[in-house]
């Protein structure tokens, strides 16, 4: 049967009719399949939730054990039948546990990719192209101006800045789940073996990542300090904090901080300037423009549905490449932490 007949866009999210479930619903539903643990894709209050083991652990840590009474973990590549639909999760390379959802029904194959990236990330399994009839893709960075430089290059700039301002503290805004841990691991790979200071909001996810066998090295809390007194030990140190904390009162207690932000949006100078960022680092957990197109080519689905982001440009470029491309205009997914 044609995929358009059995998948619908509803206010709750993408609804799969023959399985009676939603993918990444933005409102509480009876049955949900969740691609990854970021809060705009993974919300609480569902009756039943299917996801990878890591995503379920992340959801429990963020939303509490009561987030869904019935939980089912699926390994990558393990087929699970829901109603009349065969569901298989494949790695998406976005954050720990992130998955694409392959849905098969009466010979038709749809893949919902969730958020994904194509760069190697030591904290999660890499994206795998899955052949299908319809590929549902994000378009967060769906403009040709977005091209993420190699992460080594961005970290080189960060480390050079630390050499240049040894008496200042470099505080890097990074999303609590995924970006922060990837940054820590990549810093270790770049040779930064000193303790890394982390904002309290990161503690739970760091522990969780460690529980899944990801080495983060020595982390120290950046929040415990004498009130009003900058901590001397933070001079020359790297502090990682949620983006919301770096430009606000919290950052005042750091010694003359160089405000950095790790995000794909940092590519655009006005964005960085508006945020009061002194050192923008273009580090993203999403596919950039070239990778979005590369992925469409590799997956080779004749039809492409675009969920959230800058869908017009991607739709235009996909059509020029011969794909049937439509924007689904799903609402409720935000750009935070991109």
């Amino acid at each position, binding site marked *: 049967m044609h995929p358009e007949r059995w998948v619908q866009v509803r206010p709750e999210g993408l609804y799969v009719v023959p399985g009676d479930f939603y993918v990444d619903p933005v409102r509480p539903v009876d049955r949900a399949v969740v691609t990854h643990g970021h809060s705009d894709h993974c919300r609480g209050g569902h009756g039943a939730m299917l996801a990878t083991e890591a995503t379920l652990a992340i959801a429990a840590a963020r939303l509490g054990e009561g987030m869904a009474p019935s939980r089912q973990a699926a390994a990558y590549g393990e087929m699970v039948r829901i109603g009349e639909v065969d569901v298989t999760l494949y790695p998406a390379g976005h954050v720990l546990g992130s998955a694409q959802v392959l849905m098969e029904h009466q010979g038709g194959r749809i893949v919902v990719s969730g958020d994904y990236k194509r760069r190697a990330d030591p904290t999660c399994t890499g994206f795998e192209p899955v052949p299908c009839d319809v590929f549902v893709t994000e378009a967060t960075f769906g*403009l040709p*101006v977005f*091209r993420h*430089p190699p992460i080594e290059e961005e970290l080189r700039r960060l480390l050079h800045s630390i050499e240049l301002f040894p008496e200042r503290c470099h505080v890097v805004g990074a999303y609590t789940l995924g970006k922060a841990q990837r940054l820590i691991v990549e810093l270790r790979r770049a040779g930064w073996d000193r303790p890394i200071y982390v904002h309290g909001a990161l503690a739970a996810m760091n522990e969780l990542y460690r529980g899944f066998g990801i080495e983060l090295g020595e982390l120290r809390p950046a929040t415990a300090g004498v009130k009003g007194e900058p901590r001397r030990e933070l001079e020359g140190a790297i502090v990682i904090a949620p983006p919301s904390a770096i430009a606000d009162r919290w950052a*005042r207690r750091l010694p003359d901080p160089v405000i950095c932000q790790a995000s794909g949006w940092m590519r655009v100078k*006005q964005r960085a*300037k508006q945020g009061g960022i002194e050192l923008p680092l273009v580090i993203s957990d999403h596919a950039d423009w070239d990778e979005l197109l590369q992925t469409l080519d590799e997956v080779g689905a004749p039809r492409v549905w675009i969920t959230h982001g800058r869908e017009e440009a991607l739709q235009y470029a996909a059509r*020029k490449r011969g794909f049937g491309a439509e924007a689904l205009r799903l609402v409720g997914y935000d750009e935070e932490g991109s």
Partner: protein
Amino acid sequence: MKPFSELLDRLLYAPARTSKLALLEDYFRTVPDPDRGFGLAAIAGTLSLRVAKSGVIRELVAERTDPELFHWSYDFVGDLAETAALMWPEHQADRDWPHLSEVVVAMDELPRGQLTKQIAAWLDTLDATGRWALLKLATGSLRVGASAGLARAALARYGKVEPALVEEAWHATAPPYLDLFAWLDGRMPRPEIAHAPVFRPLMLAYPLDDEQAQRLDLAEYSAEWKWDGIRVQVVAVRGQVRLYSRTGDDVGPAFPEVVERVRFEGVLDGELLVARGGEVASFNDLQQRLNRKAVTPAMLQDYPALVRLYDILFDGEEDLRGLPFLERRERLEAFVARERPEGMDLSPLIPDSGLDELDRMRRSAREGGTVEGLMLKRKDSLYVPGRPKGLWWKWKRDAHLVDCVLMYAQRGHGKRSSFYSDYTFGAWQDGPDGEELVPVGKAYAGYTDEELKLLDRWIRDHTIERFGPVRAVEPRLVFEVAFDSIHPSSRHKSGVAMRFPRIARIRWDKPAAEADRLATLIDLMA
């Protein structure tokens, strides 16, 4: 080109002067000649390249990118050069960065048609930041928040020498500044400045408050009017004439009549004013002549410039800076009597007077805008560059005070970056729906650290809207704003512009409705 593009990129985001200095110093230390000299020139604005028009960027983009995708991208990014730099097709394998010096030389020598092709070829080898820097350089619009003065301060730090020495040597050299760096690296003596029309760093004055005035031994000081123009240094050496501003920028091109009339040899210190028939006009008239690229005959006619002299540094090649002020004054008077410089006159000394008399004169310097107050100079003061303690004082007339209402607050920079420390305030006027506020000025100073914290909290608690780093607040908090003078301005919605506004007091107690009206401010104009 890579270090240069990274420097520009970081300067663009660096809020604090100290950070910018450190970035520049690092650049001078790590980049070899002649690239660092060209980078310095690009930042100081002394690199006179033939610049490409933005049309060249559009042309290049049209050849290499899809027009539809360009349209969406430009719409999102908002800057032509940046959009082009970001979306330029990339082949990382071919990275082979050109040197900045190659770029500068080629831009100077290649015919226009070839230059466009060459720019495209360079773009193919650079990364996004490199492409952005190249396009900004090629279109002559760097604008990264660094000035020639900042660059020279960084040079002084780099070479660990007195800033005044760099200031002087600067004007004796040219891009790529090989001799300047050779001197700073200790490989050569300082570039020869004896026969070059170089800027001599100025001697500056401290502001004097009433309490300090009481303690001065007035017999030691000579008084004169403080003119409300801009400080200039007239330098004439072997037929070469320069008119330097107080920061050492050559403002001669904006005042060609002053330069052309110079027949003497020497270095003079004075105030540049607009004067008609010996009558000095207000600062606002002078403003019409500042920052103009082209000078029209009408402007020369309507706003004729005058230099009012108050000091002499060199008479011919004779350095007078080691003489006491009164002796220099005698030499200045003799100089003016001898040379009769056209378009210049002497700033008169005020006969020795008591404190009360001086205070009365200072206060009488009202609007009309030609005098800002008094200068008190120690009679025995040598001409010392910089702001030596206790030698020269500026004793300004009292500031105006008005009550204004806080409208917008913006996060500050550096140590203040997490505080809302920059304030836009308004005055009341009649609007279509009754009384409304119109912004009349912006202040960054005048409050204590303790007050800053209180203001920051108040702003966070009374925000009604946010635009990036700016918050609009409820119109409830009154500032007593002090400013030196106020002038008509077509660039401001209110039609007025204040000079040196600062916050005198925070009137936590005063109801906003009782703040001043725009009409009151307009009445304060000359």
